[in-house]
């Protein structure tokens, strides 16, 4: 392709917590410092900083990218914040990628931070403002509506039952028991999910990920630098992103077309022709359990309506043929929106280097895919990493 090769050479993260004592800036610092330490680099080695963070409404700050810049190591450096709603976490890695692949910089620090707990009465209330101010907000919608509407459509079109979907929550929360930073890891059963409080049918309490505070950071480097820094650089083989129309009520929500478009862009760039064979680990965005299934289908890793069967057959378990969310995902580790997406990319980084400890997927995986999603059921961002 002739494009500059870019690798991930270091990563770090904070615990994901319901409420952290640290300010957003401090969380960003902790993750950044850890990422730099992990590859024995200092801020002097960093040429530029790319930050990703989702709604400013959570932090109660306008232009929160500016507020966070000190904590993200951006003092006297070129610094930019990208923002695609929930897709931001994986997109930040893409943003870092184009900083280095452009040839302008050799190293980039990518930081994602989210502090949702500052928003009162509940972080969820900030989501009222994502809806169209004139045609939707007067109806006082809340975030769970939109997930429920999509989940219902997905289930009805494919004739699925709640139990088909609940197994994802069980799998991911259990996987997260092995993640030291996890906020809501638990050993639950499908029954527990089906008996949990109905929030907005068909969404129940154990179907969803929590609101969280947390930060994740990673260091990207151009090929010649990456090889100096580490013996095990993890290459960014492909990136893709796509944003669907804002008129979400004019779309059929049963299938995330935008995820497919993003995936195809990434597969093309990575030269991947048979994703189901060539992708060894998948970290799709799972803020709600059905989303993992929805996204697996959009990523062309499962036929439409078939993802629940793959789960039931154990294919997506950590020791299955195609492990999905070995990290524990958002459902198990937590959902500080932008940080959650980058957590998935970091998970692939550690997995592909054999450093994921108890979460390690067996069999020496070589290629992984991370995907994030956001906006009004609208954006798909995909990053493919390989060793």
């Amino acid at each position: 392709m002739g494009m500059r090769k870019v690798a991930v050479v270091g990563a770090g993260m904070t615990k994901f917590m319901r409420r952290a004592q640290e300010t957003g800036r401090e969380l960003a610092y902790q993750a950044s410092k850890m990422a730099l330490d992990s590859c024995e680099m200092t801020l002097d080695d960093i040429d530029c900083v790319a930050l990703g963070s989702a709604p400013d409404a959570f932090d109660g700050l306008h232009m929160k990218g500016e507020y966070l810049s000190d904590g993200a190591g951006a003092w006297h450096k070129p610094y930019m914040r990208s923002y695609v709603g929930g897709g931001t976490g994986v997109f930040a890695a893409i943003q870092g990628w184009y900083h280095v692949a452009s040839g302008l910089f050799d190293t980039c620090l990518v930081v994602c931070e989210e502090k949702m707990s500052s928003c009162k009465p509940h972080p969820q209330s900030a989501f009222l403002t994502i809806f169209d101010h004139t045609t939707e907000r007067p109806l006082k919608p809340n975030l769970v509506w939109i997930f429920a509407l999509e989940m219902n459509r997905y289930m009805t079109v494919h004739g699925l039952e709640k139990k088909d979907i609940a197994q994802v929550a069980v799998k991911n929360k259990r996987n997260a028991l092995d993640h030291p930073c996890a906020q809501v890891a638990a050993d639950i059963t499908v029954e527990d999910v089906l008996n949990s409080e109905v929030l907005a049918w068909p969404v129940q309490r154990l179907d969803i990920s929590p609101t969280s505070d947390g930060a994740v950071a990673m260091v990207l480097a151009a090929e010649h630098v990456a090889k100096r820094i580490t013996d095990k650089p993890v290459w960014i083989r492909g990136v893709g992103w796509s944003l669907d129309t804002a008129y979400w009520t004019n779309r059929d929500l049963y299938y995330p077309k935008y995820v497919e478009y993003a995936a195809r862009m990434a597969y093309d760039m990575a030269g991947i022709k048979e994703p189901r064979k060539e992708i060894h680990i998948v970290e799709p965005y799972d803020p709600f359990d059905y989303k993992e299934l929805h996204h697996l289908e959009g990523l062309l890793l499962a036929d439409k309506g078939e993802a629940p069967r793959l789960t039931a057959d154990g294919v997506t378990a950590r020791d299955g043929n195609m492990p999905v969310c070995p990290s524990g995902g958002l459902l198990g580790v937590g959902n500080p929106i932008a940080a959650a997406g980058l957590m998935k990319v970091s998970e692939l980084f550690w997995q592909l280097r054999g450093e994921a400890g108890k979460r390690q997927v067996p069999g020496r995986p070589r290629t992984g895919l991370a995907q994030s999603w956001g906006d009004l059921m609208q954006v798909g961002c995909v990053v493919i990493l390989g060793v």
Partner: protein
Amino acid sequence: MSANVETFPGTPLSQADFDEGKILTTHWIPKLDYGWDAGVAISRYLAELKNGRIVGIRCQRCRRIVVPPRVVCEWCWEPMDEWTYLEDSGTVNTFSICYIRWDASRAKEPQIPAVIEIDGASKGAGILHLLEEVNPEDVRIGMKVEAVRKPAEERTGSITDIKYFKPI
């Protein structure tokens, strides 16, 4: 993280920490007032809602009729200006039965938000609204519904000029 790392940064707080006064906090209630210009397409939409009608718009090239109206067809990149009146009825494309409010507090009576494909518009072209006068257990995707409006003198040119949709 690297299997080598033992401790991760971050200091989780609990409700007890707050109740016992161990945490210092500041509060700020921002003054955020906006007056959004509705513009050409939505102004007409709102004006027609006040008149008791739902209006959509048609793309001459792909011949889709969509609602809410917009000045450009996002697929063809063609300007849209063929206003088309739509019916007051529609079909439920998807729905939910919601027991929590926008601020995450619990509601006793559920709300039933739905995407309703409006008759007269292209297949799939729907709007967000609420369903009422129906038992939650009876709502189905594919159900036919019609708009129930506020009396003319109470309408203000808002999506809430339609109070809700009910089964036909």
